């Protein structure tokens, strides 16, 4: 079920990153300069959105039963994305 959560989180991160990158692009910013920022805020927003979606679908009690702490998992997934954010900021 950790992989299920990770799959959902990554999908949400990609969608939100695209959304956060799109607006500055329309206003003429360069893609390479906005991508790290968009990914950071996209991953942070995805953590909140994924939490909310799972709460709405009433899935969290399953994670409680399996003793998988929701905030630790989402925090871990957020942190796992940050090396990518840093790498993009450094190399782009």
């Amino acid at each position, binding site marked *: *079920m950790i992989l299920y959560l990770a799959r959902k989180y990554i999908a949400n991160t990609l969608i939100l990153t695209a959304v956060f990158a799109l607006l500055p692009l329309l206003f003429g910013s360069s893609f390479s300069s906005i991508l790290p920022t968009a990914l950071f805020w996209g991953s942070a927003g995805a953590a909140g959105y994924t939490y909310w979606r799972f709460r709405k*679908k*009433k*899935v969290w*009690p*399953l994670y*409680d*039963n399996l*003793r998988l*702490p929701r905030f630790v998992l989402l925090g871990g997934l957020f942190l796992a994305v940050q090396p990518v954010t840093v790498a993009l900021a450094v190399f782009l």
Partner: protein
Amino acid sequence: MKAVPMDDDPALILDGVFYRVPALDILKGVYLKVPAGTICGLFGRNGSGKTTLLKVASGQIQPNSGLTIIDGDRFHKQSKKDRFSKIAYLPQESMLPPDVTVKTLLASAGRSESDVSDPVRACTDQQVCNLSGGERRLLGVELVLGLDRDYVLLDEPFTGVEPILIDVIGQHIEQAAARGTGVLLTDHYHQNVIPLAEEAYVLWQKQCYRLDGHAPIQDQLVQMGYLHDDTASRS
């Protein structure tokens, strides 16, 4: 309420639970005890607070005051990881993600196909969204009971389930109790709960009343006005 004898037997105890939402008290000083290895039935009318009480016991919601005591350990905060090392909880609504296969769910709960009943084994390759409501409920019950915790809270496990599967669920609950698991069971289908329950409580006027162990539960439910005479005789 009757005085409760003090003993050190392992039990799940809800003590002095108050829960209120704005402008409405839902629970007012509820006391309930589920001894280990016992099936305890919880009865109450719609909106009497049964589901709220189970949510409090499982740490899904924080009561305004009151304690959950499990085998002598007090759980007054939402320390879910500690709490769920002792209990398992089947919520009223399905907790199973629709786009996951049954096999994945069983594996995540540490169960193999050989551990589950035939109706569940027959659909291990299917996704949860393709199961019927009854199959989904049976799967939820089997997952929760298979976690091998000391106490299990079951909120309406028989809802939407066909009679044969009700028998299967009943057998699983009895087997769990025989292994020493304390089971708190609530369901509106009293005819399914009464044969299983060794002890029973009724939630009435926001408080929990323990039914006397000497008289049949059904007679006491009639006496309290939870069941009508003709309803009881039909079941």
